[in-house]
Every structure is written in C-alpha cells, then in structure tokens.
C-alpha cells in the first residue's frame, strides 16, 4: 500500500501537536517546571497543631515559595505533629535558628509554612530539625479564648 505524502505529513503533524500539548500541560499548567533539574533537601519541624496544613502545601520565606510540605506524621510519644518539608537545593542558606510558623493565606485561603530566618552562622542541611515553631491558629480556639476573657472581664467588674 503506497501512502500519499499528505497523509504521512498530516499524521506527523497530529502526533507532534499531541506531544506539544502534553508538554504544555506538564510545563505550563502543572508544577513540574518548578522542580526540574535541581534537587531538594528535607528539614523537619515539630508543631503542637498543624491545623489545616496539607501535604504539598507551600513553604515560603519572605513570601517567596522555597519548597513544599512532604509528609505530615504524628509523634505518638510526644503527641506532636512532625512536618517534613522539602526545600529546593538552591535555597541552602537558611540559618539553623530559623523559626517556622503556620499561616493562612487570605481569610479562607490555604495554610502554608512561613520560615523566618534567624541570625546563626551555620546553615540547615539534610534532615535537620527546626527548634522554634509556632502552631496554626485555630479559629475556634481563638474565639473560645476571646469569649473566656470577655466573661472573665465582666465577672471582675
């Protein structure tokens, strides 16, 4: 069966267009481009309460995303949550006394970990643990505290 050149060309175009579309989806639509080539290292942090933090939530320093939450596990002896964060290798100058807090982006937005660099001369490496952490603010707890204080205040008067 002899094939016309047009058919072969059109099939070639079609397959190329499909592959370009896949490539576009991978690079432009998903997060693949942000992790290409360079590796990452893991740092750990212990939180009393992680609130609504999820795996793959962003980790940022000064508002710039430097990594993602890798795993969230529960320490059954200390009753705290252990969060493993994978930080991109190019951000390897975080001091060892960096503190981690869980913030919410926007009023109803997703939760993320904000890192606040300290002043130490040494830098964090693979598997290091952050000592200074601040838990997520749980809205109900805050309202509870507020009401409690309010009640206390009115009882004193």
């Amino acid at each position, binding site marked *: 069966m002899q094939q016309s050149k047009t058919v072969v060309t059109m099939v070639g175009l079609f397959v190329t267009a499909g592959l370009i579309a896949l490539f576009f989806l991978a690079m432009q639509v998903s997060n*693949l481009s942000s992790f290409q080539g360079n590796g990452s290292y893991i740092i750990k942090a212990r939180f009393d309460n992680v609130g609504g933090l999820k795996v793959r939530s962003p980790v940022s320093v000064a508002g710039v995303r430097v990594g993602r939450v890798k795993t969230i596990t529960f320490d059954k002896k200390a009753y705290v949550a252990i969060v493993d964060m994978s930080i991109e290798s190019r951000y390897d100058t975080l001091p060892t006394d960096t503190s981690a807090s869980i913030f919410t982006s926007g009023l109803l937005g997703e939760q993320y970990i904000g890192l606040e660099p300290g002043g130490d001369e040494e830098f964090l490496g693979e598997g290091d643990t952050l000592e200074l952490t601040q838990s997520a603010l749980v809205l109900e707890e805050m309202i509870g505290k507020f009401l409690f204080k309010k009640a206390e205040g009115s009882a004193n008067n």
Partner: protein
Amino acid sequence: MFENLQYVGRTTLQVFENLGRGSIFLIRILIGLWEPIKRPSLLIQQLYSVGVLSFLLILVSGLFVGMVLGLQGYYILSDFGAEQTLGVMVAASLVRELGPVVSALLFAGRAGSSLTAEIGLMKATEQLSGMEMMAVDPIGRIIAPRFLAGFLSMPLLTAIFSMIGVLGGYFVGVGLLGIDEGAFWSQMQTTLDFWDDIVNGVIKSLVFGFVVTWIAVFQGYDAIPTAEGVSRATTRSVVYSAFAILGLDFVLTALMFGDA
C-alpha cells in the same frame, strides 16, 4: 409470569454471551497487534482517518468548552471575590474531568461510529470473508491497526483538548475579563500537580481510548451483515461507548482522587 422469567433469563444469557464474545475478540485483536507493528503503513493510514480527521472537532470543541468554563467560572468566582483562582478552576476541571470525558465522547461519535460502520459494511459486503479466503487474517489486517490507532490517538487528542481549553479560558479570563495574567498561571501551577493531575488525566484517556475503540471494532465485527444491522451496530457503538466512558470515569475518579 413464566414468559417474563424466560425473558429475564434469555437477556441475562445474551449479555454474558456478548461479554464473552467481546473478550475473546479482544484477545484476538491483541494477538493480531503484531501485524500493524510489523507493517507501520497500516497504522499510519488509520492514525490519519481516526486521529487527524478528529483533530479539528477536538480543537474547536476544546476552545469553546474552555471559553465557557472561563466565562461561567468568572461569574461564580467573582461573587466570592476569588476571580484570581479562575485559572485553577479551568485547568483542574479540564485536565481531570472534562478533557478526557468530553474528548472521549466526541471521539466515540466521530471516530468510533465510523469504525463500526466501516467494519460492519466490510462484513456485509463480504470483504472480510474474502480476505479469509485469501488467507489474510482480517483481524490483523483490518481490526488491529484501527484498534491501535484509536488507542494511541485518544491521549493525544485529550492533551490537545485540554491545552486548547486552558488557552480558551486564558483568552476569556485574561483577555476579555481582565484577570491578572500572573495570578492566572501561578495559581494554576501551584495547585495542579504533574503526577496527580496531568498523568491521571492521561491514564483516563488511555482507558477511554481502549474501551471506545474496542466497543467500536467489536460492534462492527459483530454486526448482522445487512444494512439495518450495520445501522443498529453503529448506534449501539456510540451508546455503549457513552455509557462506558461515563461509568468508568466515575470509577477512575474515585480510585485516583479518592484519598486526596
């Protein structure tokens, strides 16, 4: 009473008989696959009639689906002051659900029906038995290239559909409605994951491509070799494909995104 029971029994047996014949036919196709692999020109011809000719339909539908998503999403999201997440909404719904499902449904209507009609007509005009007489295996020569072409075209068409849809949403959201371009793309990229979203969408489209072409070629091969039989087989091909796509989509979504 007794007739009703017999009717139920007969229908059940028929369903199982069809399933069994379909499965045996599938095995024969899979065995016959070495024919188009050995002779790629057979495959290229079918890639043209199955894939390239569906290209324009997929392109136009993808564009409009994306644009409608952008428009509707904007109206709903702007009520909550969350227009910035329009990119996420358009891309996630396209890549996860609408891309695979709508392009598979269009593919079943455009390519599946023509496969069934073509094979059914070949059977009705005894071309298939003619090939057997000449010791050419019609499964390897006719069915397998078409099956392989459908299976390969589906993920490509789905990727094109999703890409054009996202661009359509971008055109409406950023171009017409004035959403910030940076927010549109960056929110999309932070929310969608390559493995969880894109690859799962591709897996869906592979499954749909497999099932739709299988149904199409089986209905054609199994058609009663008359004009009416071929017409019925074509209808069945599209209807069964639509059911299979929508049902399987539910199962696949539950499996893939269930624990997220």
